[in-house]
């Protein structure tokens, strides 16, 4: 069974620019990881990227429109050699930043089979979605995505597979989470 779980809206990359701060605890995970990947797309880079995305395919055209409304997109992922090299509690300080009233969790999926968990949080301001955070944890991998700017969570799956964002299938839920 797959434990899809955490998708959190987190702002990564240049620490000063991100809305959600990577904590020192999370930084320490880098020392244990076999590979750490940071994808940084600030407003300038997003603007540049959108010029090169094609209008010809429907998928890319959608991504291009989506990107136009964003102010920043940051992805950080850690890959570990074996399971158990990081604890769920390592992410507590990260989740603590994603709390009400600004943030609310809209998706939480756990898969007991694969140990994958995903959570998606949205940030609202003046009734509008102004950011999104995704946290995906797997036994040997941890991915944090932070998107700043206007985005409809339903469109999130269109961004998945681009810019280093994992492919995400969102099924909205009203409760706190769901086991698979």
């Amino acid at each position, binding site marked *: 069974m797959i434990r899809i779980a955490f998708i959190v809206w987190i702002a990564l990359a240049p620490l000063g620019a991100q809305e959600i701060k990577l904590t020192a605890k999370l930084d320490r995970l880098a020392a244990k990881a076999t*590979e750490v990947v940071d994808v940084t797309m600030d407003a300038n880079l997003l603007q540049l*990227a959108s010029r*090169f995305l094609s209008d010809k395919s429907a998928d890319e055209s959608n991504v291009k429109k989506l990107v136009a409304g964003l102010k920043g997109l940051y992805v950080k992922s850690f890959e570990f050699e074996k399971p158990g090299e990081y604890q769920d509690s390592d992410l507590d300080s990260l989740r603590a930043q994603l709390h009400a009233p600004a943030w609310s969790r809209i998706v939480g999926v756990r898969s007991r089979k694969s140990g994958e968990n995903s959570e998606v949080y949205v940030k609202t301001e003046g009734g509008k979605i102004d950011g999104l955070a995704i946290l995906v944890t797997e036994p040997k991998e941890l991915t944090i995505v932070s998107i700043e700017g206007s985005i409809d969570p339903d469109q999130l799956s269109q961004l998945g597979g681009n810019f280093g964002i994992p492919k995400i299938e969102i099924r909205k839920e009203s409760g706190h989470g769901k086991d698979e």
Partner: protein
Amino acid sequence: MGKTNKMKSVLIIAIVWMLSSAALEAAQPEFDDLVRAISDEFHTRPMHIPFFGLVNLATFVARPGGVKHINLALFENLPADDRSIRRLSDALRSANRNWRPFVQVQGKGETVEVYMAQEGNDCKLLVATIETGEATVVELKLNPKAVQVWLREPEKSALHHHDRGEAY
């Protein structure tokens, strides 16, 4: 073909190659600044790569992987410590502030940093790899399709580029 004609052909090819190489050399002042900045930072000179102009001649014709132009510099005998990648990044950014950080892949003992910048209607990437005292800096001018591949899979592209870079 007579001997004279053969000699003429060889001569023409040689002249075209020399002119192309000279033109390509002249068209990369920004990259030269960048190489100079790294040389100054680490007090070392880049390795000489013989006939590298031919690579660009081939690139100009064939556009392998959507690459329209390539500049490459290899540095050896850099300090093998954790600070080297930071010093390399600082040197790159100081040489050209237009470079925007795009991807960083940090593995055990090696780091790949990718920067992106616009040049006219084109997109340029700067891929800097540092590992065990060696640094490779590659500047690529890409066609839109190649840019799209990088945007779709930045991590894979960086690592793929790094693997290919080892063959340079």
